[in-house]
């Protein structure tokens, strides 16, 4: 079947199997491989993207269901060599180690802050209950989201910084 949807601002039309999952559509058809698959049970959130501005787990959405809608992935967040404030905050706070959960975590955080721009720590933890991470123990991820909420993360060019 033919599906038409917008991905990172680009309107696409593709021939797909009805059973093609949105995450596979993004990775294999669109070549956007930041979203990862980490589980079989809609538990881990590594595949999180924004669908019409709301966070969803793309492994549990059919590409067909997203017809006519707007998908934004981690690749589509940043503009022109600058990191999105949430991405910059993740960097500043060392909120990523192996990086596998990171694109999904960032998109979930973006979705969270859109709905709750000034969350408490508990609200951040609850807001990320659908995103699993094995490396960071979540500590710095929470710090990153709170920092982004407080506007502490200015978009910056991707450069190493030394903070003494």
């Amino acid at each position, binding site marked *: 079947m033919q599906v038409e949807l917008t991905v990172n601002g680009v309107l696409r039309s593709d021939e797909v199997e009805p*059973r093609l*999952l949105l995450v596979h559509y993004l990775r294999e058809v669109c070549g956007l491989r930041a979203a990862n*698959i980490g589980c079989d049970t*809609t538990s881990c959130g590594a595949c999180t993207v924004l669908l019409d501005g*709301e966070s969803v*787990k793309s492994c549990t959405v059919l590409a067909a269901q997203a017809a006519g809608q707007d998908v934004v992935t981690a690749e589509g967040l940043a503009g022109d060599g600058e990191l999105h404030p949430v991405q910059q905050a993740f960097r500043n706070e060392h909120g990523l180690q192996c990086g596998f959960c990171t694109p999904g975590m960032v998109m979930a955080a973006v979705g969270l802050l859109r709905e709750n721009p000034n969350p408490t720590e508990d609200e951040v933890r609850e807001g990320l209950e659908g995103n699993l991470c094995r490396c960071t123990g979540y500590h710095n991820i929470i710090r990153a989201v709170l920092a982004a909420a407080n506007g502490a993360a200015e978009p910056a060019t991707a450069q190493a910084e030394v903070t003494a």
Partner: protein
Amino acid sequence: MIPAQFEYVAAGSAAHAIDLLGQHGDDAKVLAGGHSLLPMMKLRLAAPAVLIDITRASGLAGISLDGDEIVVGATTRHADLASSDLVRTEAPLLAHAASLVGDPQIRHRGTIGGSLAHADPAADLPMALLVLGGSVEVSGPSGTRRVPADAFFTGFFETALADGELLTAVRVPRQPGVPWGYQKFVRRANDWAIVGASAINGRIALANMGSTPLRASAAEQALAGGASPAEAAELAAEGTSPGEDIHADREFRGHLARVLTKRALEHLS
């Protein structure tokens, strides 16, 4: 990890969906948010040959008032139910239950119609409908009918929906300002309830204490007879048949039912 092959068709309206259900019979399943159905299909626990997508079908969305009831369209997502000012005023227990389903991403997709039709005895919305004394609107080839919550959940993941019927709306009584209690006991935040208990207006319902959400009738009767919340709660597990799993055995579930019922009755919002 991926479903078996199927045909996909989008229904334009409730009537269209019912038509398609009639055409395909047992081969078809209704798809709304897909967050109960698709996980099962990905694990190959379900393999319908046809999926009828009702997400954009007309006549199935929206939250409105109708006399002394709130009417919630079947395709209303948990996130919208949870954040609806109308529901938070008129039936806050329902909004609260919706806010606890899964995680934010799941709540952006899952629908009340899907959750009720799926009828997981451990889930939030079936228990909430039961304690609120709500009902569902069901449409099929022979017309529309209302099924009260007490009669809707008929068995383990089974409902009163007959072949070819579609759940189109959910109705709950308007109860603004009526105190309510809700207790969901979990191992991790986005798990299903190990046991759940909710209370409003003398009704008490339990999740995961049997093959369907259950009324704690003995406890309700004790309350009606003047017992204190603590006394009534002692009877919460009577008439229940909880299962056993890695989280809890029967004895512990019974104990939790009593404790959570007491807390639901004592910590009213």
